[in-house]
C-alpha cells in the first residue's frame, strides 16, 4: 500500500509539471491554432536565467523571479516579432518556425553555457513522500491553474483575451486590441512554461533537459484536448499517474511507451481529448 501511495504522490507531482506544460500549450493553441514547439525553448531561457542569477545574488527566489520574468518576456517577443508575421501568411509556417526556434535556443544555450549538464540548486528537498519539492510543484501548479481560471473568467483582460482568441476580427471591430491580447496570451503561456521548467529542471540542466518532459506535456495536452484548459490539467495528472504506476509496477523502461500508447489510444477513440463532447459532423 505504501508503494502505491508513493507512486501516486510521485505521479501527481510529475503530472503537475506536465499539466503546466499542457496548459501553456493549450493557451496558445486556443488563440492561434498553433502547437508551439518552442515552449521548451522558453523554459530553457527561464532555467538558464535562474542558473545565472541565483548564484550571483545568492538567492534561489531572486533567480526564480528572474527566470519567470525572462521566460515571459521571451514568449511575448517571440510572438510579436517572429511567429506573428510568419503565421499571418501560413499557420504551417508558424508551427515550423516554432520548431526552428527550439533548435536555435538549444544551440544558443549550448554555445553560451556549454552542452554539459550543470548542477541546478533547488529550494526544496526531494527526499520524502510527499517531498517538499513535490508539494511545491503541486501547490504552485494548482495556484497557477486557479489564477488562470480567475483571469480568463473574471477579469476584463480575460474577457478580451477570450474574445480575441475566439474571433479576432469581430474582437477588433469591437475595439479590442486583438494583437495585444495575442501577445498577452503568449506571455502568460510562457510564464507557465517557465514555471514548469523551474519545476522540471532540477537537479541538473542541459540544453536538451526538457525534450522528454515536453513530449509528456504534449501527450497531456492531446489526452485532455488541445482546446480544453481543464482537460490539459486532467491530462497532465493522468499522464503523470499512469507513467508513475507503470514505472513502479512494470519497470521504468515502459514509462515512455505508456505515454505514447496513451496518445495513440486517445487519438483513436476521442481525437479531441477525453473531456471533449462529441461534435456534430458537417456533411
Amino acid at each position, binding site marked *: 500500500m505504501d508503494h502505491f501511495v508513493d507512486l501516486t504522490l510521485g505521479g501527481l507531482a510529475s503530472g503537475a509539471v506536465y499539466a503546466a506544460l499542457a496548459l501553456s500549450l493549450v493557451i496558445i493553441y486556443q488563440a492561434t491554432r498553433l502547437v508551439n514547439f518552442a515552449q521548451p525553448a522558453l523554459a530553457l531561457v527561464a532555467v538558464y536565467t535562474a542558473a545565472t542569477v541565483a548564484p550571483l545574488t545568492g538567492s534561489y527566489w531572486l533567480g526564480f523571479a528572474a527566470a519567470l520574468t525572462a521566460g515571459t518576456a521571451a514568449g511575448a517577443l517571440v510572438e510579436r516579432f517572429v511567429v506573428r508575421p510568419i503565421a499571418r501568411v501560413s499557420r504551417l509556417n508558424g508551427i515550423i518556425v516554432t520548431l526552428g526556434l527550439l533548435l536555435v535556443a538549444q544551440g544558443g544555450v549550448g554555445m553560451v553555457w556549454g552542452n554539459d549538464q550543470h548542477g541546478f540548486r533547488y529550494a526544496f528537498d526531494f527526499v520524502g513522500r510527499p517531498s517538499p519539492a513535490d508539494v511545491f510543484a503541486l501547490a504552485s501548479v494548482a495556484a497557477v491553474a486557479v489564477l488562470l481560471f480567475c483571469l480568463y473568467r473574471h477579469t476584463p483582460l480575460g474577457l478580451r483575451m*477570450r474574445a480575441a482568441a475566439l*474571433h479576432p476580427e469581430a474582437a477588433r471591430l*469591437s*475595439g479590442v486590441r486583438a494583437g495585444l491580447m495575442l501577445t498577452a496570451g503568449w506571455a502568460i503561456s510562457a510564464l507557465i512554461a517557465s514555471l514548469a521548467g523551474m519545476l522540471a529542471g532540477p537537479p541538473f540542466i542541459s540544453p536538451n533537459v526538457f525534450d522528454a518532459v515536453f513530449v509528456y506535456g504534449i501527450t497531456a495536452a492531446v489526452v485532455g484536448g488541445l482546446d480544453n484548459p481543464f482537460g490539459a490539467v486532467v491530462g497532465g495528472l493522468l499522464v503523470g499517474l499512469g507513467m508513475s504506476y507503470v514505472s513502479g509496477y512494470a519497470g521504468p523502461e515502459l514509462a515512455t511507451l505508456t505515454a505514447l500508447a496513451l496518445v495513440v489510444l486517445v487519438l483513436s477513440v476521442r481525437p479531441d481529448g477525453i473531456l471533449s463532447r462529441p461534435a456534430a459532423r458537417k456533411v
Partner: protein
Amino acid sequence: MTTTATEHLLTAEGITVRFGGLTALDGVGLRVRPDGVTGLIGPNGAGKTTLFNVLSGILRPSAGTLTWKGGPPPGRRPHHLARAGIARTFQGLHLFPLMTVLDNVVAGADRLARGGPLSLVTGLGRHHRDERELRARALAALERFGVADTAHRLPGTLPYGVQKQVALARACVCDPELLLLDEPAGGLSGGQVDELAAQIRSLARDTAVVLVEHHMDLVMRVCDHIVVLDFGRVISAGTPDEVRADPAVTRAYLGTAGEGDAR
C-alpha cells in the same frame, strides 16, 4: 439635397480596392450624414461588403481617402475605427461562440472602458467600475432588442433570429456614431423583418446607419438615401424613389436583352 463636406460624418472618396487582377471597388464615393439611414445595394459581387470592410478598417484600399468628421480617421486599424465610434455587424454574425450572450455584448462595449493596464489585469479599480457599468449597459442593450432573457446562454444554443438580435445589441452597446449593418434581414421571417425595420429607424434617430441589404422592401422602407453599386462602381444614388426610377438600377438587377448570359 445639398450638404457640405463638414456636415458629413464619414466621407469616402475614390475608394479603389484591387485583389490581384480583380478590381472589386473602382473609385467609389460615399457620404454618410450623422443621422438617417444610407442604403448600399447592388447585385451579388457588386462590392458592398468590400466597401464595408474598407470603412471598418479590415481592408486597406489601393487608392482613395476616408474622412471622419471632417478630418483624417484616428487610425487605420479596425480597433482604431471601432474606438472612434464605428460599429458593424456581419452577414455571418461572428458572435463569440464559447462566451455567454452577456459577455459577447460586454466585449462589444470595449471602447467605453477607461481603466489602465493594472486594473485591466486585476479587474479592480477603474475597470471594476467600468465593468459594472458595461454589464449594465449590455443588459440594457439586450433588453432593447428583446433578448435579455438569453443573457447567460451560449449563442450557439439560440435560434438564428435571436442570434441576429444579439449581434445587433453587441454592435449598438457602445453608442456608435456610425453603425454598419451587413445584411441584417438575411434569414429572418416576414414578421421579424418588420420588427427589424422599426429597430433600424429607431437606431437612426441618434446614429448614422449604413445598410447593406438584398431585401429591397426593407431597404425602400427604412433608407433616406441609397447608393447603388455594380461591378465595383457607383451606378446610381439618391432617394428611394429616385433610385427605384433609375433605369441603370433596373439594368444592373435585371440585365438587358442579350446580356443576361454574361451576368
